[in-house]
C-alpha cells in the first residue's frame, strides 16, 4: 500500500510539473503585458499554442538527419526527469535519491548538449550562431551553478535536494553570508539558463540577437512544441529549485498527511506565482545586454558562488 502511495506521489509530481509549466510561462507573459499596460494573452495561451503546434505537420529541412528528429524527445525527457526530481510540494519522494542536485544540473547539461547539436544539424548560419553562443553561456553558467551547489551542499551537508530542503527548513540555518551570495548567484544563473532578459530575449524577433531561439529556428510542429515545453519546464525547474532551497516553507515531509500536502501544493503554487511576478517585474525594468557583456554577468555569478564556497571552507559559521 505504502509503495503504491509512493508511486502515486511521484507520478503526481511528474504530472504537476508538466501541467503547471505552461501556466507559469503564461503567467509571466501576462504580468509583463500588464506592466506594459497591454491586455496580454490569456493565461491559457501557452497550452493552446502547444496543442496547435502538436497538431501541425513537421516541416523538416531537406538535409536534417535522424539526430534532428530525436533531439526534441531527448531534450524533453531529460528536462522532465530533472524537473520531477526537484521537490515541489513534498520532499523525500520515492525516487528522489535517483539523482542529487549535481546530477540534476548535469541532466539539464545533457539536454543543452543535444539541443546545441540539433542547432548545427541543418547547416544554416543561424543555428550555428545560436549553438555557439549557447555553448559560451553554458561554459560559464554551469561552473557557477556547480559552485552554488557546493556552497549550499557544504552548509546542508548533502547534495540531496530532499535533505537540503529539510535542512533549510530547520532552525539551524539562520542568516548566513554564504547563503546570500549563493542566492544572488543562483538567480543570475537561472536567468541565463532560461534565456531571459538581460541575457537573451524569449520574445525577440530579431535573429541576430537571439541565442536560444536561433538554435531552434529550424524546428516546427510537434518538435517545436516539445522544445517549447522543455523550456517552460526548465523555467519551472529553476523556480522550484530556488523555492526549495531558499523558501522551503510548506514542503511536506516524507510522512506528511493529506492536510499538509494540500498546504504544500498551495504554498508551491503561491511561490511560483511570487517568483513569476518578480521575474516579470525584473524583465520589464531592465534592457537586454550585448552578447559579450553576458560573460561578465556570469563571471560575477561564478565569483560570488566561489566566494560563498570559500567562506564555507574557511569557517563553518559563515
Amino acid at each position, binding site marked *: 500500500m505504502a509503495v503504491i502511495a509512493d508511486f502515486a506521489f511521484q507520478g503526481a509530481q511528474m504530472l504537476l510539473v508538466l501541467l503547471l509549466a505552461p501556466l507559469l510561462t503564461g503567467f509571466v507573459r501576462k504580468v509583463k503585458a500588464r506592466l506594459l499596460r497591454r491586455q496580454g494573452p490569456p493565461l491559457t495561451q501557452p497550452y493552446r499554442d502547444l496543442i496547435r503546434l*502538436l*497538431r501541425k*505537420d*513537421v*516541416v523538416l*529541412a*531537406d538535409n536534417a*538527419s*535522424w539526430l534532428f528528429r530525436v533531439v526534441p*524527445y*531527448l531534450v524533453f*525527457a531529460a528536462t*522532465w*526527469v530533472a524537473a520531477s526530481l526537484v521537490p515541489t510540494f513534498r520532499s523525500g519522494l520515492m525516487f528522489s*535519491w*535517483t*539523482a*542529487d542536485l*549535481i*546530477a540534476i544540473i548535469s*541532466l539539464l*547539461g*545533457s539536454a*543543452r*548538449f543535444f539541443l546545441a*547539436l540539433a*542547432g*548545427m*544539424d*541543418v*547547416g*544554416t*548560419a543561424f*543555428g*550555428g550562431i545560436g*549553438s*555557439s553562443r549557447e*555553448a*559560451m553561456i553554458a*561554459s*560559464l553558467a554551469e*561552473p557557477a551553478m*556547480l*559552485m552554488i551547489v*557546493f556552497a549550499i551542499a557544504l552548509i546542508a551537508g*548533502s*547534495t*540531496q535536494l530532499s535533505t537540503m530542503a529539510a535542512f533549510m527548513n530547520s532552525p539551524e540555518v539562520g542568516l548566513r553570508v554564504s547563503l546570500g551570495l549563493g542566492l544572488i548567484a543562483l538567480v543570475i544563473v537561472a536567468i541565463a539558463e532560461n534565456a531571459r532578459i538581460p541575457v537573451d530575449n524569449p520574445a525577440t524577433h530579431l535573429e541576430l540577437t537571439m541565442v536560444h531561439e536561433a538554435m531552434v*529556428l*529550424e524546428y516546427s*510542429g*510537434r518538435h517545436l512544441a*516539445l522544445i517549447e515545453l522543455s523550456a517552460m519546464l526548465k523555467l519551472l525547474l529553476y523556480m522550484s529549485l530556488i523555492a526549495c532551497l531558499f523558501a522551503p516553507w510548506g514542503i511536506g515531509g516524507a510522512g506528511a498527511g493529506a492536510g499538509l500536502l494540500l498546504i504544500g501544493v498551495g504554498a508551491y503554487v503561491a511561490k511560483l506565482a511570487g517568483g513569476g511576478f518578480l521575474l516579470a517585474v525584473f524583465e520589464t525594468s531592465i534592457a537586454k545586454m550585448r*552578447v*559579450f557583456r553576458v560573460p561578465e554577468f556570469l563571471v560575477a555569478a*561564478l565569483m560570488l558562488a*566561489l566566494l560563498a*564556497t*570559500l567562506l564555507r*571552507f574557511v569557517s563553518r559559521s559563515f
Partner: protein
Amino acid sequence: MVVAALSCVLVLLALAPLAIAVRASSRASILIYGACLLVTLTLAIIALLALLGHAGPATAVTLPLGLPWLGAHFRIDALSAFFLLVIDLGGAAASLFALGYGRHEEEPGRILPFYPAYLAAMNVVLLAADAFSFLVAWEVMSLASWALVIAHHRDSENLRAGYVYLLMAGFGTLMLLLTFGLLAAGSGSYDFETIRAAHPTAGAAALVLILALLGAGSKAGLVPLHAWLPLAHPAAPSHVSALMSGVMTKVAVYGFIRIVFDLVGAPAWWWSMPVLALGAASAVMGVLYALMQRDLKRVLAYSTIENIGIVFVALGLALAFEASAMESAAALALTAALLHVFNHSLFKNLLFCGAGAVLAATGERDLEKLGGLIHRMPQTAFVFLIGATAISALPPLNGFVSEWLTFQAILLSPQLPSWGLKLMVPAVGALLALSAALAAACFIRVFGIAFLGRPRSAAATAAHETDTNSLSAMYALAALCFVAGILPGLFIDALAPVTRLIVGQSMHAQSAIEWLSIVPIAESRSSYNGLLVFVFMAMSGLIAAFIIHRLASDRIRRGPAWGCGYPDAGPRTQYSADSFAQPIRRVFGTLIFSARENGEMPPPGSVAPARLTVTLRDPVWDWLYAPISAFIAYAGEKLNTLQFLTIRRYLSLVFAALVLLLLVLAIWP
C-alpha cells in the same frame, strides 16, 4: 597468473620479428592484428581474474634477466591488475579496429613490427616489480611509440613531432631514473619489495614526489610538460593514436600511483598541493587548447590532457585525505581517479577510432573540411556521438559518474586540517567545473562541425561508411561506455581491492545497494542512480513520442531549410569550427592565448574580399620551451669554441678539471 601474463607478453614480443618477416604479404596486417587481439583479450581476462581475486597462489616471479645481482621481478597485485585490464581492453579494441583500418596503410612494414612490441612493453611496465625492469620496459614503450609516431615519415610535421616526443620521453625517463635512484639509495635495492619496506627521509621523499610528478607527468601530458603530446598523438596512425592517448597515458598514471602512493610511504600534507595545481591547470588548459584546434585528432589529444588533469586532481585529493588520515575519503577520491582512468580509456579509444574512420573515409583531419558525415557514415556518427556525450561528462553515460565522484570527494575536503588546502580545493573545484562545461562545448563543436551540417569539401561529400571490424570495435567500446554509465556500482566494487591496497580502505560495497544506486557516503548525503535516470529518460521520451504520434500528428514534410527566409547560400555560409569557438576564444582566449582578431576591410568601392586573421600564442611554449631552447642554442654556440683549442689548452683544461674534482672530494663531508 604472472607466468600466464608473461607468456602472453612473450607471444607479443615474438610477433614483432614475425611481422618483419611477413610484412610484404597482403595478409600480414590481418595476421598480426588478429594475433594481438587474441593475446590482449587473454591478458585482459587474466587481469580481470586477478582483480576479482581469483588469482592463483603464485602472483610473483623472479626471472634471471636484467641486472645479474637483481634478476627481473614480476608481480601482479590489485593495482597492476586494474591497469593491465585498462591497457589490454584498450589494446584489444585498437587491434580489432586495426583489422579493418590497417588495410588503408601504405607502408604496413613501418607499423606492424612496432605495434606488438609497444603493447608488450606497456604490459611489462605494469608487471615489473623492480626498478630496472620497469625503466627498461618504460623506455621500450617510449621508443616503440616513437617509431610508430614517425611511421608516416614523409610528412615533415610528423618528424618534428617525433623529435619533440623523443626529447620529452628522454626527459621523463631521466626523471624516473633519478626517482628510482633516490628510492634505491634509501633502501639499498632496486627491488620494489625492499623499497616499500624502507622509509626514506622527508627530504628524499619530497624529492621523489617532485621527480615522479615530472617523470610520469611528462608521459601523462600534464601541463606544462604536455608540449609533445598534441604533436605526437595525432601524428601516429589512428589506432596507435588511440593507444597512446587512451592507454599509454594510463601507464604514466600507474607509474605515478605506484611510486607516490605505494613505494614512498606515508605522504606529507603538502604533497597534494602541486598535484592538485598541475591537475587543475591541465584540466582547464587542455580543454581550452582543444577548443582552439582545427585538427580533429589534435582536439582529441588536447582533450586527453584535460582528462589526465581530472585524474590528477582526484589523485591529489586522495593524497590530501591520506595525509590527514581520512581513509574513507581517500578511498572515494582514489576510486574516482581510477574510474576516470577506466572511463577515459574507453571513450578516448572510441573517439580516436572514430577519427580514424573519418580520416580513412575522407582523408581529412581538418574540421573545416568535414561536415554532414552523419548522412554518409551513420554508424560511425552514432558511436562517435556516444563517445562525445560520455567524454562531456553527461548523464547517463560513464564520464559523468567519475566526475560526480570527484565532486563528492571535493565536498568532503572542508574537513582537511591544513589551511592551504582549504583555500586551494574550492578553487580547484571551480576549475574542474569549468573544464567539464568547456569539454561539453568542445565536443558540441567537434561533433557538430564534423558530422552535422552540410559537407564543406568534396572529400566529405564522397565519404562512405567504414568497415565492419572498425565498427565492431567502436560499438564494443560504446557499449562499455553505456554499461559503465548505468551500472557504475559494479565497476566501483571491482576497484575495491585496489583502493584497499593503496589507501587501506575501500568504498563500501555498492552493488548491494537496492536499485543499484551508487552512494559514496550515506544516502541522505548524496546518491546517483544511472540505471534509473536512463530508464526514466527512455520511458518519458518514448511515452511522449507514442502519445504525440497517436493523438496529435505523425506527419512529416520535407522542404528547404528555413534559415529565416534567406535563400540557400551554399555550405560555406555554415558556422565553421573557428567561428563556433569565437565566443569562447573571446572570453577566455584573450587572456590565456593572447588571442587577437584582426579584420581587414577592403577600401570602399573595392571588390577585394575582406579578411579576418586570428592569432593565438601558446603561453607554455612561449614562456617555458622557447627560452630553454634558446638557452641551449646559445650555450652550444659558446661551447663550440672548445672544439678548436690547441693541445696545450686541452691539457690544461684536463689538469684544471682534475684539481677541481680532487678538491671536491677533499671538501665533501
